[in-house]
């Protein structure tokens, strides 16, 4: 039986989005008459087998080589290529990340295999694999057909997907894959490691983001104040980053941070697809914009049409009052 493999590596943990990717993989495996498996590169984090079973994986293959870790693309590509040659999976699924966007296509180049990034759906039609991927920042969806045999390599956009455990969790067969990685040397040398500067937008429960509608750099303070009043973080759309008003680490969108907060408040943001790609998975979206026809209102649960410079101060006041009340009660 052929295998749909979900691949994961991380620093002491499974990759972010692995559960959503396993759910995606299970649907594809069912359509393809294949088995779902989890491939873990590097030390297997505790609980990995249980998690794999919860999402219907029949196997867990582990390659516990210390060379396999984030920031080691040469080793990761080589390991994946060897694993594919050994097992010939039907498809290889990656929860998409910045590193996956390098490793997955390099692996495809190494194997001469089909590759599709930004996948949101995959199925089998007439024996052929069909993959739907977001294009034009999400303005369109492109459906690709995979030609020929060999593994199809897919980067899965997990933010738009839901993790769906199976009704009856199973116990995957765990085995070690032994690969020869000793000759691999990383060609890229890190000379200045990324310094995680405080909390990340990706982890925030509440995000207040500002866009072009703020009108001037100094008005971004309103966004920061509202974020503070709601106990969240401030974000921005790409034009503000391009203008140099805010740091790139604040950029929400297709080429910035892909977030999934409980609450996303968009202030003066028109709602271009490229931006929505970074926040559409939010549980509740609130839009504040002076243009009633702005696309953001199509995505929002609540909207206020008007001048953000008048509305946001009132919102800060109302949010602070609400906080004060809660503190009084407790």
């Amino acid at each position: 039986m052929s295998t749909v493999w979900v691949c994961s590596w991380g620093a002491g943990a499974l990759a972010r989005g692995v559960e959503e990717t396993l759910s995606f993989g299970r649907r594809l495996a069912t359509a393809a008459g294949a088995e779902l498996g989890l491939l873990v590169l590097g030390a297997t984090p505790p609980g990995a087998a249980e998690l794999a079973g919860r999402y219907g994986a029949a196997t867990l293959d582990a390659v516990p080589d210390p060379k396999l870790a984030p920031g080691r693309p040469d080793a990761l590509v080589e390991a994946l290529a060897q694993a594919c040659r050994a097992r010939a999976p039907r498809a290889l699924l990656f929860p998409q990340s910045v590193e996956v966007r390098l490793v997955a296509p390099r692996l495809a180049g190494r194997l001469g295999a089909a590759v599709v990034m930004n996948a949101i759906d995959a199925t089998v039609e007439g024996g052929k694999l069909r993959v739907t991927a977001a294009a034009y920042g999400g303005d369109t969806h492109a459906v690709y057909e995979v030609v020929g045999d060999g593994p199809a390599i897919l980067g899965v956009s997990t933010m738009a997907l839901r993790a769906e455990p199976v009704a009856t969790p199973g116990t995957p067969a765990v085995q070690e894959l032994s690969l020869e990685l000793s000759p691999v040397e990383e060609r890229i040398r890190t000379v200045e490691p990324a310094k995680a500067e405080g909390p990340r937008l990706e982890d925030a429960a509440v995000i207040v983001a500002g866009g072009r509608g703020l009108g001037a750099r100094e008005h971004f303070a309103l966004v920061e104040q509202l974020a503070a009043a709601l106990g969240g973080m401030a974000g921005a759309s790409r034009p503000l980053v391009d203008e140099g008003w805010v740091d790139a680490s604040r950029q929400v969108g297709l080429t910035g941070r892909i977030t999934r907060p409980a609450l996303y408040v968009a202030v003066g943001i028109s709602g271009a697809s490229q931006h929505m790609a970074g926040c559409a998975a939010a549980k509740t979206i609130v839009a504040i914009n002076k243009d009633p026809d702005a696309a953001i209102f199509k995505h929002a649960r609540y909207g206020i049409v008007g001048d953000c410079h008048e509305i946001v101060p009132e919102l800060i006041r109302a949010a602070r009052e609400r906080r004060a009340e809660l503190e009084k009660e407790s």
Partner: protein
Amino acid sequence: MRIVVCVKEVLDPDAVNSFAVAGRLAIGDDGKSITQSAIPRLMNGFDEQALEAALRLRDAGASASIAVVSIGSDPSNILRHAWALGADQIAHVPADPATLDGHASAAILAAWIRSTGGADLVLCGRQASDDDQGVVPALIGERLGMPVVTIARAVSLVGSDTVRVTRVTPDGDEGVEVSLPAVVTVSNEIGTPRYPTAARKLQARRARPEVATTVAIGLAAAELAPRIHLVRQLVPSVHGRCELLDGGPAAAAKALVERLARDGAL
């Protein structure tokens, strides 16, 4: 040193987005292509930023020739733009974009680079704003046996054989070094690209891209066979259920906080 910048002509993503927002983005009879003739074609923004990175290296004192190459039916406009900005060589490999996937595109670009004297540094945009796939730079790297460094906000040379790249990562900026030759992809964080001077822009009208056929650069038909092909493109519909709150800023703000509290979103 020789720097090769790979550029792609795309539909203006802002115009595509405007049509989409207005609910007027339409797919043609082939079920695949956006057909609105009002949407201009231009150089992919990230590719223009890759060219900007090359020009900045030269500004910083690198003695570098800059070659700009594109695939497609007729990318002369974007190639002339590249020449106006300061490219020393502009080249076009004719091919029907509808038949190409990332593999075929990378095969063409790698073969062109190899057959025209190689490259010390290949610069590409991080992804094209049409299909957003971003796989071609990595595939070029694999074909040419070069390391690939992605999402640069700054590129500089260290000595004559090493490039230093500041990468934008989810955990903040990361500084990496890699020996040349290498492929580097450039992101919007590098900043706004320059404009050509009026004089150079005028001269660029007469600039003619070199044309190299896939046969001339040594590619067999099999190397151009795509592994994926586009069967359909569709415009997804967004179903809004937005409750608009009004009554003036203070009342709307109060109503919003009440609803968010009720929903458990606060």
